[in-house]
């Protein structure tokens, strides 16, 4: 187990990729704070963590809410006394064309997806600096590079996360903290189903050079690698996990 004795916070940890990552971190020995807007689902993931023999703690949080993120940090330190790994996965995926889009939809997307990265990083970095080590892993998206019709705010927020992580890597590197992003390709989650038929979704998910339908579990390995000691010299990077659907 590569993460024995480590403490991780996973925002958006109640479902999909965030849940898979939370469980993966637990399997490697980390204690995991499952932070999510959905209290019941977060609690379920914590139960699963205990089922794996790992420790967990659920926190209900809107990562776009400053006070709520401060409470998340406090609960994390009260429960586990420290934080080693922050996984910024919480995000919203709201559909609208740019022309006619409400300001609210734009703000909500940017506040949660990008602002959540800022607020959570700001909340946890001071203690990482004190211990001279830490891992920040933000979940961006292939859509940051590729774009997606009717998801301009999502694309903008995910591309912005990559820029944020690169800048953050340069700010915190001297204290032994790395900051990286992963860019998942389209995966078999509820996300793409919000606006397409089941048949269309599966055909699209399969249409990559490797012909594989990505599942949430497929992104866990690279995250564990980035969280582990093996990746201590990798920072400021965006890792594309997309079965070769694009290459940059």
């Amino acid at each position, binding site marked *: 187990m590569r993460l024995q004795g480590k403490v991780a916070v996973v925002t958006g940890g109640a479902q999909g990729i965030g849940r898979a990552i939370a469980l993966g971190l637990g399997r490697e020995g980390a204690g995991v704070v499952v932070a999510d807007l959905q209290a019941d689902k977060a609690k379920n993931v914590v139960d699963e963590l205990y089922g794996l023999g790992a420790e967990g703690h659920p926190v209900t949080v809107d990562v776009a809410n400053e006070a709520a993120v401060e409470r998340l940090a406090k609960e994390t330190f009260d429960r586990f006394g420290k934080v080693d790994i922050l996984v910024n996965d919480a995000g919203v995926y709201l559909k609208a064309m740019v022309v006619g889009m409400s300001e609210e939809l734009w703000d909500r997307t940017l506040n949660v997806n990008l602002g959540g990265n800022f607020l959570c990083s700001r909340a946890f970095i001071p203690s990482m600096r004190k211990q001279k080590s830490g891992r920040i892993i933000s979940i961006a998206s292939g859509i940051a590079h590729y774009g997606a019709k009717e998801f301009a705010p999502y694309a903008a927020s995910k591309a912005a996360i990559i820029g944020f992580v690169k800048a953050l890597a340069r700010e915190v590197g001297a204290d032994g903290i790395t900051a990286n992003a992963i860019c998942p390709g389209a995966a078999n989650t509820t996300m793409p189903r919000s606006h397409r038929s089941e048949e269309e979704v599966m055909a699209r998910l399969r249409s990559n050079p490797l012909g594989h339908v990505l599942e949430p579990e497929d992104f866990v390995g690279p995250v*564990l690698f980035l969280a582990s000691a093996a990746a201590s010299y990798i920072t400021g990077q965006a890792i594309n996990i997309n079965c070769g659907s694009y290459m940059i």
Partner: protein
Amino acid sequence: MSQVALITGGGGGIGGAVARRMAAAGITVMVADYDHAAAEKVSAEIAAAGKKAEAFAVDVTQARDVKTLVADVEKRFGRIDVLANIAGGSFYTQRIEEFTWAEWKEVIDVNLKGTFLMCREVAPVMQRQKSGRILNTASNYGVTGSALRTPYSAAKAGIIAFTKTLAQELAPDGILVNTVAPGPTDTPRVMGKESAEERNRRWSQIPLGRTGQPEDLAEAYYFFTTVESAWITGQTFHVNGGLVTP
């Protein structure tokens, strides 16, 4: 059965570390190098640690050499699961007008043509297996360029595009092809050129505050042999302490 990895430049700083890392994980490593004595040394170290390794001499710029090497390995082990193309180098630091045609070709051939020749020979073996991992080696200079290293920067950029193309060609056979791009790394060859102080001053801008160790690179190459990287192909993986964040 143990996996088999073929590592070119396996007698060098990064190549040797990669060979040791993979061997430690139970992979049988073929250490191939232009400098046969260097390959022997690495393979002997690995064998002394109780792991499996063999040394080979190869000039990756010579198609016949490459063919012989790959045929040898295939005959002995019947498979090649991992190919790590690490043989390379910048060799010269000089202005473009000082480069002779022969020097230019030397740098392009060792880095880029050698990668091509090795991939051309090993890919059919992996296609028959319907599995395999190819790891090519670029450099942050392949993205940023580097004054006084025109052929090296061009060759490394070439490797990145070559990798993407090969990844597309081999994906239907379940073969993954990725590039590892090392930043400044403390290898004996590089450190021989400048003092530790010069080196530290030169690279004081690295966000993580230190130059890379061959072992840092070895972990990244090893990652690409594991199931954890099963869905990554055609990508460039920068290991540089945050110096370059393309």
